């Protein structure tokens, strides 16, 4: 009897979670292999595996749909904003946690309050502001919001990490004659590598996936990013599903690779960001 109830509870615990796990991963796998089918094959049976590997969809996405432009723009935005986010958050986080100066409370408070601001409410006023300054539709338009939105949480991650480093090392460096900048970049920076890599990965995920700001602030086709580019696929090629799937697969691939490599770090970072917020 006990064995039977045990088996039943094993079933009801394991099977639903297994089903959920499968639904979480299957759509992406389906996306991957469907993008290798031809349209006719896909229309016949949307479930089946492709009969032959067919990379025409990918070729077409680059040739006729200018997907390379979108990829380049997304990569450009991601890398430039990553570099600047890294620099800014490290410098500000370190200085805030180690130095006492006038206005420190203000800087701290503004960044802390910034976590609470729902950024979507800023799109309309930002559009108006950028329009007045002439910053709409340029190559660097999106860098401003992407860097700014990443700052608060990243700064607090760095700040709390630096607080955990003992001060003696910096004192020793100062006695040996190292200036502030030198101490910061040659002694603290290497120690902070774990938290900085978390910051970089999170910032990359956010920038690469961001949609509303990219959609509203950039209308010029030459500067559109991947998520916005995907929406233009449906209006232009409304029937070609396999082509769209190839584009979706390409948009997802970098994120998947990074997730597989760093999933522990991503979870930690998102958790810290969430609990702080």
């Amino acid at each position: 009897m006990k064995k039977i109830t045990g088996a039943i509870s094993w079933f009801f615990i394991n099977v639903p979670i297994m089903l959920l796990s499968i639904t979480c991963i299957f759509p992406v796998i389906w996306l991957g292999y469907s993008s290798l089918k031809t349209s006719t094959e896909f229309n016949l049976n949307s479930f089946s595996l492709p009969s032959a590997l067919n990379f025409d969809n990918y070729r077409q996405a680059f040739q006729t749909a200018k997907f390379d432009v979108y990829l380049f723009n997304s990569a450009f935005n991601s890398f430039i904003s990553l570099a600047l986010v890294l620099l800014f958050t490290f410098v500000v986080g370190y200085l805030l946690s180690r130095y006492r100066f006038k206005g420190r409370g203000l800087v701290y408070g503004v960044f802390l309050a910034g976590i609470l601001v729902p950024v979507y409410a800023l799109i309309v006023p930002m559009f108006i502001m950028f329009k007045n300054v002439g910053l709409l539709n340029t190559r660097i338009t999106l860098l401003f919001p992407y860097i700014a939105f990443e700052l608060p949480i990243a700064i607090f991650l760095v700040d709390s990490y630096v607080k955990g480093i003992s001060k003696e090392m910096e004192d020793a460096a100062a006695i040996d004659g190292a200036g502030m900048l030198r101490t910061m970049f040659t002694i603290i920076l290497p120690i902070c590598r774990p938290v900085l890599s978390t910051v970089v990965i999170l910032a990359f995920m956010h920038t690469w996936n961001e949609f509303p700001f990219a959609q509203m602030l950039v209308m010029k086709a030459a500067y559109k990013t991947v998520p916005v580019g995907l929406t233009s696929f449906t209006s232009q090629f409304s029937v070609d599903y396999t082509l769209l799937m190839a584009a979706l697969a390409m948009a997802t691939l970098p994120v998947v690779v990074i997730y597989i490599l760093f999933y522990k770090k991503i979870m930690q970072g998102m958790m810290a960001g969430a609990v702080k917020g």
Partner: protein
Amino acid sequence: MRAKRRISARLGDILQRMLGPVETGSRQRLRVKAQRCRPAPLQPRYGLMMLPQRMRLMLERNAKRNLPLIYALIGVPFLLYIFIVIVPLCISIFYSLLKWDGIGPQSFVGFKNFATMLKDRNFWLSTTNTLIISLYCVLGQVGVALVISFLMTNRRLKLKEFHRTVIFFPVVLAPVVIGFVWKFVYDQNFGLLNTLLRALGLQSWIRLWLDDTSIILTTISIPVMWQYIGLYLVILMGAISAVPTEIYECAEIDGANWYQRSMKITLPMIWDTLKIAIILCASGTMKIYDHIYIMTNGGPGRSSSVLALYCFKTTFDNSNFGYGATISVMLLVFSLLISWVIQLLMGSYGRKNA
């Protein structure tokens, strides 16, 4: 009295000998823990404490000399942040008092936009839709994540690490991609859902998932729920792993089963984290836009319109910038309000239980 105590101590000894390793094991562990808790003996520190006075002065003077550099280094990101986040926040309040089409002259109309909003049926439809989706998402994301995180403490569940990694995976995907993928899932002809239903012989369940106004709010909530279950699962599992294992061991010795342990120990211990998770989820769903823009763009009709979508449509499609800014302000107000209400509700309930 003293004799009694001696007897009980004796009894304890006998019991201990009879019960064997479980009791002694946990006792020993407790003893070890008690030793660990004792403060460490004071040791001489060779750090800044021991530096001669003159050297400390020198260090402080160095810090003073660096002050302009510090301001410069912090100033650049700080000003950027002010101009990108704080300034738009303030001017959105200013623009909400204007009537402006984005190009022509601006005229100051006071609170007229807010008055229009009160009578605007589409605004209230979008607001109720957003609130309903938020409710679904709190139940579907935090609720399901809570159940799964409880199951994760169950010994019968296998492959825990695998489940956690896989369930978290959709969190990192772009909402736009999720929207497209679910559009394929819901598609009436070749969609995965209808294909599956046909294969199972459940033809009567087949619907026009994204064109049926009676179920549209549920169908568009499911992808959002599905995407973020993993985030809350990881948050809650983090909180559960912080609960000291001794408590569970004691409860287990006292004969509490898994359900009782979850409800009486885990739930009260992670209450604060649960509160944060619910606030995060509700205020996060208030600004939902990407998924819905891709899947239905507010349709059919306006049945799946949400606040952010309505705001962008008023601003950019109808070029009504003043009114768009008004809705932005309301979006901000609603998200802050909803976090405050949840804080209030859950705070009092938690205190009563604890």
